């Protein structure tokens, strides 16, 4: 991930909306645009974008995933930072792609890797914003699930710091917070029992702290967790961290 060290920042960015936001979570993508614009950033959304290719990559079909990655790299060609409201899709761009092209490095793929930011990481470490001028009307307990694909990146810490700086936000620590929620994309489909058990255990830990909102930087984790929670009769309000930033603005 050395290439991530010289990531470009700036006030003109390309938004990679992710396929999950495209299909289900349009409001997360909207919040990303609104928060960035609030910070004076001009956001462009290349309309030919589809998916980062992770489903094929993780299932081992690298012929298929390289095809998708090349498409994505060409859609996001240029010099501008690429902002993604997902630690997982961001990691696909700057880590997964490098791995699947390790035998035949590709300049466009490298360029995309070097320019990709997870959105909270961008706000904190790209734009230098460490305090968020937001406010909740009343004390609000937030359980923040650090998504696994942000391990080893600045995203987790950045998100936590920004959330904690919101007036009336109470971050509630919970047990075994380093453990995965069990989604893992195609993993959860191919190994439904392991994945379901992992998710239920995660929910036990999360819900034990009685949070008002469950927050993460990856909608995939939240989709999985809430999907299980609803089926188990214990739904929980869940939002992407970027939605919290937007919603808490005065």
């Amino acid at each position, binding site marked *: 991930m050395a290439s991530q060290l010289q990531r470009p920042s700036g006030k003109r960015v390309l938004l990679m909306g992710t396929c999950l936001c495209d299909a289900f979570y349009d409001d997360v993508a909207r919040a990303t645009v609104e928060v960035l614009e609030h910070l004076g950033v001009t956001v462009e959304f290349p309309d030919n974008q589809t998916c980062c290719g992770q489903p094929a990559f993780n299932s081992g*079909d690298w012929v298929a995933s390289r095809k998708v990655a090349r498409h994505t790299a060409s859609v996001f060609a240029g010099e501008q930072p690429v902002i993604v409201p997902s630690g997982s899709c961001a990691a696909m761009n700057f880590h997964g792609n490098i791995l699947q092209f390790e035998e035949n490095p590709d300049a466009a793929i490298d360029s995309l890797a070097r320019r990709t930011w997870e959105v909270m990481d961008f706000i904190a470490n790209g734009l230098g914003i460490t305090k968020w001028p937001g406010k909740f009307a009343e004390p609000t307990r937030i359980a923040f699930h650090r998504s696994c694909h942000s391990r080893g990146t600045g995203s987790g810490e950045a998100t936590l710091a920004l959330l904690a700086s919101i007036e009336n936000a109470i971050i509630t620590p919970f047990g075994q917070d380093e453990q995965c929620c069990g989604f893992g994309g195609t993993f959860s489909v191919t190994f439904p029992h392991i994945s379901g058990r992992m998710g239920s255990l995660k929910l036990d830990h999360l819900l034990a702290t009685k949070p008002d909102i469950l927050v993460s930087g990856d909608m995939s984790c939240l989709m999985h967790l809430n*999907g299980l929670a609803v089926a188990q009769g214990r739904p929980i309000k869940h939002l992407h961290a970027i939605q919290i930033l937007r919603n808490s603005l005065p």
Partner: protein
Amino acid sequence: MIGIQPIDQYARDISDEKQASVIDGSSKGTDKRFHVLHHDYPDPDALRKLAAAIKDHTLHHLGEYLEKAEKALIQRGVNVHFAATDEDARQTILSVLRQHGVTQLTKSKSMAAEEIHLNPFLIENGIECLESDLGEFIIQLDGDEPSHIVKPIIHLNRRDIAKTFLREGIANDYNDDPETITRRARVHLREKYMVAQAGITGANFVCADTGRLTLVTNEGNSRFGMAPVPVHIALIGIEKIIPQEKDLAVFLNLLGRSATGQQLTVYTEFINGPRSANQPDGPEHMHVVFMDNGRTDVLASNCKEILRCIRCGACQNVCPVYRQASGHAYRSPYGGPVGAVLSPLLFGSRFPEFADLPKASSLCGACNEVCPVDIPIPDLLLRLRDKAKRESVPSAGAIPMSPFATLATSPSLWRTAMTMSKAMNHLPIQVAPIKPLQDWLGQRTLPDSHGGDFRKWMKERKKDRS
């Protein structure tokens, strides 16, 4: 293909009691292991990277270091053997034992020995072979398999053990107090040590410069096993070599902390060779068997980093999949993340049989985060998935990906699919006749489709602003 992945089946069928033991045993101590490393070293990652670099360097020059170690060992009066395969290793050990007329021995814990099923083989050949590590001893009594590298009986609770002791006559009454259990095992084992004629051990490290073996335990059982016997045999994977004695400082400090949260394991033995003239006890004969058994193939693969492994078990402890499925689900002595990489590679021709293991991971990266030699396990799992696909190994419940790639590289098709999924409020995958997919959907509710809504909003916003 319709069906269920073997490891997922384990997770489905595991008993609540066994699973509770595994989850408890592996999650306990997570904080301790983290803190002991981070308290003593301001930058543990630098140390892990140093350890990785030393291992990589050694593996890169493995031939030279092995030769060096062999020379040093011979100089110390050790007989050195090389075994290319598991069968070679078993036969070498058997012939050494026969040569010394051994009929009874004790064995301390060794993953290399587990890997080649040495114990049952020796017993089949008429040699009484007693496991002296408490956990392995219980496994032997039960006719069970170890399920963790460091804690072989992590899947048992003390009631299970007390029952075994009663059944096997190690105890005359049922008592599940851990201290009593240990005391009873000790009484039983002490007698066996005294009548044994040989001791078999593994080794954690072999220093190429001096040929000295380093062996760590928490029970001191390997010392007992060696003290009263005339013959010591050490079975060692060729990747256990490190260049020099001073490198031990790096590895011993990392091993104890990563394995059990100890600054140093209770017993750290340095074995110089057979007993010298002025030593009161110890074996007169010492044999070292360096075993390849697939390791050079691993070295030639694109997953060679796994050979850095120092068998600390840290990756197993933190792995959420291991916690749910147990070590037995990995069907080899190496369970958890390390096993998911090692088994498919090490047992070369059996790759298809173990091809589900690299897939059984959410790629959460917890293993890499704690690995003392910084093995990028998730990357290796992904490379193995790619290998399985390239070699067309069938995989239960796999979703075909080429239709996805076609869709994801045709923007207008993609956009249409998004709006359509909203119109029908389900994704095409929801009706696919794939069993795991149906199991998956049965367990959770998908959110309502908002396919294409964001794109529409973005377009209108742009229009409004221009």
